[in-house]
């Protein structure tokens, strides 16, 4: 731990990593809460994997892959949102297809890009220790967008997630609200890809929120708690991965997964204990 603090003080790469991790945790907790309560984990998975296509294309044509990821994430969110609204019956098949094709396209682009393809692994599994100073600003801006839109549309998002039919009766355009929500998920996914990579994004999006759900009485409190959990998981994952010299993304996810399992067990025991006391 001491050693880590020392590195943190002296090395910018570690400072960048911790800051990006903390910033990403905020949007992660907020949007993860919607993903978990509205049960759109699979849809979010579709969005995040399709993103590899955009990163690959941007890489091939010499643009910043993160910008490519951003554009494609929004397109994927709108496309998948449209599919899920319009072809609800076949939603999972269609999203599954997009998911795989997006990844395949990305792999082909990366393969065709001249030079040694070291980046593929870092897209897939993330490498938070490589993030640059500019990324901090980028992630901070995305955070700002996500949080301000959630504050502005809080009532509507809550209503649409909780009871779609009644929201419609209240004059809410359920479709556009839903699409906006998916776009914000997409933005969050792009941030989180920097931290843990495409494959592990869904775990980081859902595990803090799923853990928070056990303890939160309302959606707002669940968001705050999930953000705090996210911050703890990413930072402690970083510390452990640095000490053990193991991949950071995977470590963060394992930490988050363990915390979720422990929370589930605690929750199970306390509710059993309570019902035992009642008898």
């Amino acid at each position: 731990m001491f050693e880590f603090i020392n590195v943190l003080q002296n090395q910018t790469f570690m400072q960048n990593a911790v800051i990006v991790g903390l910033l990403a945790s905020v949007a992660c907790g907020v949007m993860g809460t919607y993903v978990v309560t509205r049960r759109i984990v699979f849809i979010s998975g579709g969005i995040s994997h399709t993103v590899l296509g955009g990163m690959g294309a941007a890489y091939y044509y010499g643009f910043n892959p993160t910008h490519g990821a951003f554009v494609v994430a929004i397109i994927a969110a709108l496309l998948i949102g449209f599919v899920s609204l319009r072809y609800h019956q076949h939603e999972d098949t269609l999203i599954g297809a997009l998911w795989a094709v997006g990844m395949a396209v990305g792999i082909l682009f990366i393969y065709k890009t001249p030079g040694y393809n070291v980046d593929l692994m870092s897209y897939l599994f993330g490498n938070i220790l490589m993030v640059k100073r500019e990324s901090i600003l980028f992630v901070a801006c995305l955070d700002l967008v996500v949080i301000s839109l959630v504050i502005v549309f809080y009532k509507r998002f809550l209503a649409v997630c909780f009871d779609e039919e009644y929201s419609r009766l209240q004059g809410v355009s359920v479709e556009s609200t839903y699409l906006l929500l998916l776009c914000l998920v997409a933005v969050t996914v792009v941030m989180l890809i920097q931290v843990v990579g495409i494959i592990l994004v869904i775990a980081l999006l859902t595990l803090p929120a799923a853990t928070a759900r056990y303890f939160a009485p309302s959606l707002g409190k669940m968001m705050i708690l999930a953000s705090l959990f996210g911050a703890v998981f990413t930072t402690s994952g970083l510390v452990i991965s640095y000490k053990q010299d193991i991949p950071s993304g995977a470590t963060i996810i394992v930490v988050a997964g363990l915390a979720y399992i422990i929370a589930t067990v605690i929750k199970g025991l306390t509710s059993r204990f309570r019902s035992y006391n009642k008898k």
Partner: protein
Amino acid sequence: MNKTVIEIRNVDFAYDDILVLKDITLTVEEGNFLGIVGPNGSGKTTLLKLILGLIHPLRGSIRVFGQAPERARPSIGYVPQYAEIDSSFPISVMDVVLMGRLGKAPLIGRYRKIDREMAEEALKEVEIYEIRDNRFGTLSGGQRQRVLMARALVGRPEMLLLDEPTASIDGRVEQDIYELLKRLNEKATIILVSHDLGFISTYVNQVACVNRSLVCNPIEHVTSDVIKACYGGPVHMIKHKCEL
């Protein structure tokens, strides 16, 4: 002559290929209390959804307050039969009731003070003010129905549509809710789906028997034969009156 609030003319409705409602014609005037009865699966809920514009007729026309159903929604309060609600969703009773103000509150930002006050009033009306901070998912079936009722009342609707609102509510509260509806009926038109024919005969002034087709009568003309024809068998329609 009273104002007509609902005008349904020769409406057919089908889910996929199965005709559920056939040639429905119904007029409801302002201030009426219409009871809808009919066996399970006869199309009562479907009829309410047509009135709300959640689904659209295959044929025929529906006007609510003289407009297309979608446009009349702000003046309607609706208590669904089964709200498709995830009971693990983290939301308080108060927040569920506030949803009934969503259409009238500002587009963005938080609910206003007046919205909260009206929500508190509605909670008191259905006697669940004490549990306003509880999580909705932890409530019993009857408590949930009362929350949904408060949500329908909080928008101060000119018309209330209730789909078996008292199905799992205990007897005492059920009585109170009927009295509440009677009081609300002084200002609002009420349409109520119920299997409790005893109730229907005590409070309503118009009865629609739905069974794919619809037969509507003023309450004076509703005899056990009318009901029998609708349900396809004898039903204890006047159990209330017998008990008295």
